[in-house]
């Protein structure tokens, strides 16, 4: 029997699901969202960080290009605190097709994607680290967007509007009554309990898992999974998003995000949404491509690598026509129409940049089917910035510098300037004492030492707040997570950094000899 019923149940807490839940709240619906992991554990927390200008899609996918151009402006209005206005450049190098820049520029103008050609001299004045051999340069409205900030902000807004967000809850069964979905069986992963939520309507926003979740209702959603790897460099030799002006391909973009510059991406077909292992060749390829745009990257230390998985719709013949490529724009499947199953819509693919638009399109469809007249308000409703989620390193430094030496707070993570107070507050607010959640919220351990120093301190602070929790239970998984990001970059200075971590945690602290945490 349902322990709870609601109007709308959203499955998946990435940008798409949270966007849908927020849109639904503004339309006055009762909403519950369930997410199997923590915020940002899916693709939304493993993306490249680019707020698209639309420039990357003007040739390959004009609709997406227009959507991005519009949503780029909308997001700057409603979530300005998550965005750094870096601007973007498209560069043609001597090895790129010579006729492409003109075609590309014409397409931008036709589609309303703002772009302006500048001289290479001006580009080099803006970004002295660029390869001086570039031949043509265009300026666009790219930005970088911190998805953790966005997801936190959305969650806070949803809760404020009366919606619910349940983390670490996984949908394991969809329950049908005839040809209508009426409830979902959900496992609370912390306690292993099973509960049932009844709802009038369900949205499957599980990204690369969308096929698996649809199959819970015996529906086939054929999805191909494409893994994309990224490498964050320890410094930011450029402050503008750098794109390569050529037909879109792998390894052609560098995004400055926070304190790092992120090189990306590759595209490798994988079998599972969790297949995020990075091969050495992917890293070599990304570094080599990055050096073409910014030669001094050859001398910088790669800090961390990760991969995200794209769901690509691979419909059977006839559904979309044989000749079309697998679309990368958003896919919204109305299962009433498509499969004769009432009460379920699946939404996946697309971009983080257009999450609001995707949510609007989904909710328009949901409302139509539920006979609700409410219209979308998300485009004109700014989201309130939560004080905790706001992150920019220079702001943190400025805040520390104005305090007198007397009440200088204790800095626990020196790389990212995370104070003890901030950690205490985050731990109190968080639903678990998971250090990785604190990391996602405060960027604890994301800097050059990759938690080598602060992990121990944070474990000590967490234990003071909750002395009954398994002592340092969160330390090992936290260290392992940081380590995983360094393994693909395990040579040179990064491997030295890894060895330093081992000296500290194994030789000095003997972490490996602790008794297993008791549950």
């Amino acid at each position, binding site marked *: 029997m349902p322990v709870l019923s609601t109007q709308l149940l959203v499955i998946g807490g990435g940008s798409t699901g949270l966007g849908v839940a927020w849109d639904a709240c503004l339309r006055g619906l009762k909403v519950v969202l369930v997410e199997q992991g923590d915020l940002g554990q899916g693709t939304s927390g493993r993306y490249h960080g680019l707020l698209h200008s639309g420039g990357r899609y003007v040739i390959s996918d004009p609709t997406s290009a227009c959507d991005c151009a519009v949503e780029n402006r909308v997001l700057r209005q409603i979530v300005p605190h998550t965005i750094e206005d870096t601007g973007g450049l498209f560069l043609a190098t001597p090895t790129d097709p010579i006729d492409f820049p003109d075609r590309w520029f014409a397409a931008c103008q036709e589609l309303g994607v703002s772009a302006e050609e500048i001289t290479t001299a001006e580009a080099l004045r803006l970004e002295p680290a660029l390869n001086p051999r570039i031949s043509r340069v265009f300026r666009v409205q790219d930005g970088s967007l911190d998805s953790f900030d966005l997801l936190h902000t959305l969650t806070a807004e949803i809760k404020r509007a009366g919606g619910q967000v349940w983390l670490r809850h996984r949908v394991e069964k969809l329950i049908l009554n005839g040809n209508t979905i009426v409830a979902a069986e959900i496992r609370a992963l912390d306690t292993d309990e099973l509960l049932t939520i009844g709802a009038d309507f369900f949205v499957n926003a599980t990204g690369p898992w969308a096929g698996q979740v649809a199959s819970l209702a015996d529906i086939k959603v054929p999805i191909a999974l494409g893994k994309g790897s990224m490498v964050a460099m320890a410094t930011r030799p450029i402050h503008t998003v750098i794109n390569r002006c050529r037909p879109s391909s792998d390894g052609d973009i560098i995004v400055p995000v926070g304190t790092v510059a992120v090189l990306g991406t590759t595209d490798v077909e994988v079998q599972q949404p969790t297949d995020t292992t990075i091969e*050495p060749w992917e890293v*070599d390829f990304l*570094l080599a491509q990055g050096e073409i745009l910014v030669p001094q990257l050859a001398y910088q230390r790669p800090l961390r690598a990760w991969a995200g998985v794209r769901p690509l719709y691979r419909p059977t013949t006839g559904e979309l026509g044989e000749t079309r490529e697998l679309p990368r724009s958003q896919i919204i499947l109305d299962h009433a129409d498509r499969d004769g199953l009432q009460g379920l819509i699946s939404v996946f693919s697309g971009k983080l940049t257009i999450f609001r638009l995707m949510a609007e399109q989904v909710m328009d469809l949901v409302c139509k089917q539920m006979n609700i007249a409410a219209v979308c308000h998300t485009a004109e409703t700014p989201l309130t910035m939560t004080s905790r989620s706001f992150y920019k390193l220079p702001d943190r430094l400025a805040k520390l510098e104005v305090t007198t*030496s*007397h*009440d*200088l*707070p*204790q*800095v*626990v993570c020196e790389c990212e300037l995370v104070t*003890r107070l901030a950690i205490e507050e985050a731990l109190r607010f968080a639903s678990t004492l998971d250090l990785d959640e604190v990391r996602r919220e405060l960027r604890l351990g994301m800097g050059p030492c990759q938690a080598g*120093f602060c992990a*121990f*301190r944070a*474990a*000590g*602070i967490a*234990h*003071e707040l909750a*002395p009954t929790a398994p*002592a*340092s239970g969160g*330390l*090992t998984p936290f*260290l*392992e997570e940081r*380590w*995983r990001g360094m*393994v693909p970059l*395990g*040579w*040179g200075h990064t*491997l*030295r950094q*890894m*060895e*330093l*971590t*081992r*000296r*500290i*945690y*194994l*030789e*000095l*602290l*003997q*972490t*490996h*000899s*602790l*008794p297993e945490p*008791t549950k």
Partner: protein
Amino acid sequence: MTEVLIVGAGLTGLFASLLVAERGNAVTLVAQGRGGLELSHGCIDIWGRATPSRALSRLRKSHPYRLAGTAALHAALEFFEEITQQAEYPFPGSISRNLHLPTALGAIHPTALAPQSLAQGDLFDGTPFTLAGIDNLRDFYPQLAASNLRRAGIAVQSVLDLPIPLDDTRHDFYTSDLAHLFDKSNWREEVARVWKPQLIGIKRLGLPAVLGLRDPQHVLEDLQERLGLTLFEIPTLPPSLPGLRLEVILRRRALNTGVHFIEGPRVVGRIDGRSDGRRVSGVVLQTVGGPRVHTADVVILATGGILNGGLVFQQDGRVQESVFDLPVNYDQGRGYWTTTSPLDSQPYSGYGLLVNDLMQPLDAKGAPIFENLYVAGGLLGGADRTMEGSRQGIDLATAYRAVEVALG
């Protein structure tokens, strides 16, 4: 008199330089950086996983301990104890029984020799103990340490937080800030006055390692007397005070015994042109003013492993020795170097140079490459020091053996 050149100023290089100077030979120590002592706990680990004296004889023949030989290890320890005694920073303990010391995380660190202030924290000593943190010190969390020790079945009498009697209301202290304060006797007097009332009924008290840098044994004894109890220290995150103290002691002695230091430049090995490539003639110092040749009769490489720059792991999957480009024993290809958990044994930890029992690096056929080049410490392959708990023991034993052979 033999002119000896040692490359590297970590535990191995410093210790080797003292041995050479002790025998009345001229010794120059060149180093680009400072070595890893301040990253270490400042104890001498010989074999962490079992009783050292028994475990060592069963090691593979290619293990650095087997190559250096037990005699070298014993002689090295004897000299080490002499050095630390004379510096009034004694290291109790023995090779036949490990001490079991608490770490800042509350795990157990088995080690053969430890400075007295650490050794007094032996967990199987039988005297009940209390752990105390110091307010606003970011690197020690006594509750966490106590909980983990208790989980391992070790009784911790109580946990305290002790204040810092300073007017200043700073919230942030490093261990080195506090160590400088504890070096002053009027500070210790004040601390004792404020702390004493809080320590009633406590016989043994564990503190983060902050009790002085310049004359730590005196600080320990003085504070114990003022507080009327036994104190012990627990090393914290780097810069770790016990490691720093050991570095200070070794350097002080090196300067006093005439070791000539050249610090800063990167060095490249130089082969003797007249020897058909069988001998080295010294190194070239890459100084700011340009390359400078430094010749010697004998060169001892103590440049350490990956952390200290003796080994360089390349993106293309090769591992190189940084001074003479000597052959390294390793698996070709980055994919083999690490595992998925930082707490597991790592393949790269065992990579390094292969040497014979004279500490001479060997070529692919097993023949010594140069007649007058010797290798000691972290640069040697064949041991996973982290998992074995053998780092400092290997450093001392191989340094001893290399000097012994080099000076004939």
